[in-house]
């Protein structure tokens, strides 16, 4: 099973989401722009992919820093039309650092503006294919996925990965329906004809049924015990921050996890550890997972 030749996936990592270039003679569409700090590389990759052809449109699956962080730089270079999910528009208008998960998680993105919005049920021409916009609340309340019935490709953003889905932060920040919404999103994907998923992170994959099964299992475990979700969310948020910084003195970790609101709030409300215990647990758990190493008094991101 192969992707249509007009779809080029630029597989990135965790700090930057994948960049998906949908080629068409009249101008390409880019889905998601990566993290702001990576914008120079993203621009170089995009230039390589476009081979001198115009970029007509930039579209986001949702507006988290790893998906929209390169928007401003790409607009600056290409002056392309920019479209975001309708639910994200007010957050972008007022640049809501909390709802966009920026300063509250020690993340950064350059402010940008958009030209128009799209929502559930809309049809979008991206590249040579027609895509249906499907609401995908959960990880981000306003996120969408894009489905091409003709090619049976799903651009899933962070709603479905080969192994799991993006951390459901909203459930812990006042939206107590977010896990339920995640279930609805997975149910909705399971009803689509999908041969290949292009996720926001990781390689494109077939075997959508097996991926859905893993996702539902994970969701069940969060619903059984909400502190599992809380632990997962702080690990994701902290390792993301460490990927950007690359390293942090071990002695600074307790103050850091006590200062960054997303980490401190989740700990206070769901985990109840002291800052020192919280910091020690995070470091040990991420070390066990191979995401960090201790070296010369520093906590160092391994990058994976």
């Amino acid at each position, binding site marked *: 099973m192969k992707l249509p030749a007009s779809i*080029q996936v630029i597989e990135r990592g965790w700090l930057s989401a994948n960049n998906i270039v949908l080629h068409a003679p009249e101008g390409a569409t880019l889905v998601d722009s990566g993290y702001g700090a*990576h914008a120079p590389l993203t621009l170089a990759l995009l230039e390589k992919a476009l081979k001198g052809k115009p970029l007509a449109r930039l579209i986001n699956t949702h507006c988290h820093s790893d998906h929209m962080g390169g928007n401003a730089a790409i607009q600056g270079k290409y002056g392309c039309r920019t479209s975001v999910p309708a639910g994200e528009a007010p957050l972008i208008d007022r640049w809501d650092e909390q709802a966009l998960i920026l300063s509250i998680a020690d993340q950064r993105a350059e402010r940008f503006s958009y030209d128009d919005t799209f929502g559930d049920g809309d049809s979008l021409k991206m590249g040579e294919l027609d895509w249906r916009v499907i609401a995908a609340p959960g990880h981000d309340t306003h996120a969408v996925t894009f489905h091409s019935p003709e090619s049976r490709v799903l651009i899933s953003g962070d709603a479905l990965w080969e192994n799991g889905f993006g951390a459901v932060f909203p459930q812990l920040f006042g939206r107590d329906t977010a896990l339920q919404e995640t279930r609805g999103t997975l149910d909705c994907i399971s009803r689509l004809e999908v041969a290949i998923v292009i996720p926001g992170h990781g*390689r494109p994959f077939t075997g959508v049924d097996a991926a859905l099964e893993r996702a539902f299992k994970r969701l069940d475990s969060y619903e059984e015990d909400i502190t599992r979700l809380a632990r997962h969310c702080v690990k994701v948020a902290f390792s993301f921050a460490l990927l950007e910084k690359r390293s942090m003195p071990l002695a600074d970790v307790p103050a850091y996890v006590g200062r960054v609101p997303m980490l401190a709030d989740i700990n206070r409300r769901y985990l109840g550890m002291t800052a020192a215990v919280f910091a020690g647990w995070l470091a040990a758990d991420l070390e066990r997972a191979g995401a960090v190493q201790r070296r010369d008094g520093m906590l160092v991101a391994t990058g994976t």
Partner: protein
Amino acid sequence: MSESAKLPLEDIASPCNNICRMNPETQLCEGCLRTIDEIAAWSGLSAREKRAVLAQLPARKPKP
């Protein structure tokens, strides 16, 4: 499905380690040591092509 038809989706992990910054002198990413062409093309490479890229990386490590 033949083996060759499966190859593009076989699991060869990307060497990206999230540094994602080009070195202007070497024209290699400072993190994964790939060229722009290799990063842009990665997702569409066959498993054999991916292995060939990976095999070149150790020799590109900056000399201490």
